[in-house]
């Protein structure tokens, strides 16, 4: 790649990443600086590329489930759900009521874990050591619940087509409630050092601004769009699973800066906790967790295509799936929110940003490198 640079004498070229404690993962930002101010920046990826979409074309439907969850490491379940939902739609499987609720539970738990982690990341990016320590612990408590429910800590591989793989363990609801209370108990402390802290507000307010005009141009979603006052949420706009039966609000904010985006997350944590409580309460007690599924080795799905979407903590995730009557998918395209955020939007936001604000901005939009490259 050749990059035209008319100010080459006046600018410092700097690579932020891939080996850098500040980037959100294994990715790189190439920036040109004058002083501390970024003139331009380019996102470089490919460091985490594994070719998931290609790998899936070589795997039977059931075999794709262990790999899709690796697409987004902090929030794997959305991927599992989307693949399962696409295959079920194309293959004509209806999942039982209990599975619907269990899937909603898992999706919301993973959103919660991811949101909590992002709050910590946003605070840590500005140099606050305490918040990430707490939030990682809180996330770990949620991971404990995941482990109990799904048998896996980070990668759950819990949903497959037909439903989910195991029922709730005995006493899960109580232990989940205890975890939720721990999160709620910690939130005021987080507020004190972040949203109420003068220094943190100075660091984040009016920084990393987004422009509402970009929404249509780039397809922004998630906290980034809600921070500009647009109440867009896939859970509300295109309801799926049990979300229509749940009471929750779509949080919006104005300002379009880091503060607004982090504030949305903080309130979404509360909403998410509310949703999980409702799910645990409304979930049917009995019933099968999975529909009978065709032979996993030989099942073929007739020709078809579909786009299924869901709300991840980062925005809209979608799977565009094409089948051709064989026992493998013909093509899967994974639409991750981070892709839009990390390339188009981030590169526009870099212009005029202080180098010190680069990392908080990246965390707040947010970007998840494995999802960007798949």
């Amino acid at each position, binding site marked *: 790649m050749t990059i035209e640079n008319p100010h080459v004498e006046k600018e410092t070229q700097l690579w932020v990443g891939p080996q850098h404690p500040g980037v959100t993962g294994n990715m790189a930002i190439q920036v040109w600086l004058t002083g501390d101010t970024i003139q331009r920046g380019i996102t470089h990826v490919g460091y985490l590329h594994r070719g998931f979409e290609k790998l899936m074309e070589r795997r039977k439907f059931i075999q794709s489930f262990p790999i899709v969850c690796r697409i987004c490491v902090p929030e794997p379940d959305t991927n599992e759900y989307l693949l399962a939902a696409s295959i079920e739609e194309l293959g004509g499987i209806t999942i039982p009521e209990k599975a619907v609720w269990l899937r909603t539970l898992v999706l919301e738990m993973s959103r919660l874990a991811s949101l909590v982690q992002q709050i910590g990341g946003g605070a840590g990016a500005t140099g606050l050591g305490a918040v990430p320590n*707490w939030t990682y612990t809180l996330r770990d408590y949620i991971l404990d619940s995941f482990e109990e429910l799904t048998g896996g800590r980070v990668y759950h591989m819990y949903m497959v087509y037909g439903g989910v793989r195991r029922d709730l363990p005995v006493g899960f609801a109580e232990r989940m409630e205890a975890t939720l209370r721990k999160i709620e108990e910690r939130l005021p402390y987080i507020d004190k050092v972040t949203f109420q802290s003068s220094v943190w507000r100075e660091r984040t307010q009016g920084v990393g601004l987004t422009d509402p005009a970009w929404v249509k141009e780039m397809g922004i979603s998630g906290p980034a769009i809600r921070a500009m006052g647009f109440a867009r949420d896939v859970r509300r706009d295109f309801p799926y699973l049990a979300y229509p039966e749940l009471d929750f609000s779509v949080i919006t904010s104005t300002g379009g800066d880091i503060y607004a985006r982090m504030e949305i997350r903080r309130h979404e944590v509360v909403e998410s906790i509310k949703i999980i409580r409702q799910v645990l309460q409304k979930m049917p007690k009995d019933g099968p967790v999975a529909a009978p599924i065709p032979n996993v080795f030989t099942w073929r799905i007739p020709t078809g295509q579909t786009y299924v979407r869901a709300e991840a903590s980062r925005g809209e995730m979608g799977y565009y799936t094409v089948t051709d009557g064989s026992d493998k998918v013909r093509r899967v395209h994974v639409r991750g929110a981070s892709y839009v955020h990390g390339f188009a939007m981030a590169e526009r936001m870099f212009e005029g940003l202080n180098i010190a604000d680069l990392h908080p901005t990246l965390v707040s939009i947010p970007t998840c490198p494995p999802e960007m490259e798949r």
Partner: protein
Amino acid sequence: MELLLQILWSSIGVLIAVAYGLLTGGIVRKLFARIQGRVGPPVYQGFIDLGKNFFVRDNISHGPMFYFGPALRTAGGVGIFLFIPAIVGWAPGENFSFAGDLLLVMYFMFFGSLGMALGGSAGGHPHTPIGAGRGLSQMTAFEVPFILAVIALVADTGSFSVHDLTLAQAGGFLEWNLLTHPFAAAAAFIAMLGMNGYAPFNVVGAPNEIPVGPMTEYQGGFIATLGTGRAIFAIAKMILFMDLFLGGATSILEAFIKVFVIYMWSVAVAAVFPRYRVDQSMRFFLGWPALIGVVAVLLALF
């Protein structure tokens, strides 16, 4: 002969200061860890880190200036320590405070940062000039309230000698400049936040922006030297503040306690705040703290 004895005593003093600096650093890490909900490293971890860094082989060099950086930095710390009295009224603890005054000490303070900037820049890593630039600009900013506070004290006492400034507060804690010159003390203690390089003024080597600023290219023995310098630098600064505002110390124990307490002020702030950008921290120091300093000077003069 007396000079030789003084050199011996001061050398021991430097070693004690380094040890105490490392220990305090360990306690600080432990305190940070507790706030973060952790157990934290053992308090002696600083010593192990130091030892380990000495036992790491140095691979690279970027020319003589590169070696100079850590040396200057450490020299700055040792310099401050040597020219202020650690323990007033006890010859071994007085160091060479008879030989230098406050201006020399402040020069040493500047000396370390400058050395770091020069040495680091020889490494050629882009993080270094950015960090050094930040460090120097931030230093010019926090020097303003600090110097104003010092001017206020000097104007009142009429001497640039730290020794004299300390002796002037000798009549019990009511005589301490902390109470007699509250505005000067406020300005100086706010400036101290910047001097110590803890949050919110640690943008110089911010690990997740420009890891770790001027020190990016340093390793092994260099880091160990820098660590030693940092330990003594921190302690020397605290002793300076103790001498200027808390009436100095008359015994080793008193010195330890006072140094620790002053240190904790910086830590208390650092643990709960994120870091300012460099423009913000400059704006901060040149705002209220500078104004307080001006008020202190005015009060001292009239």
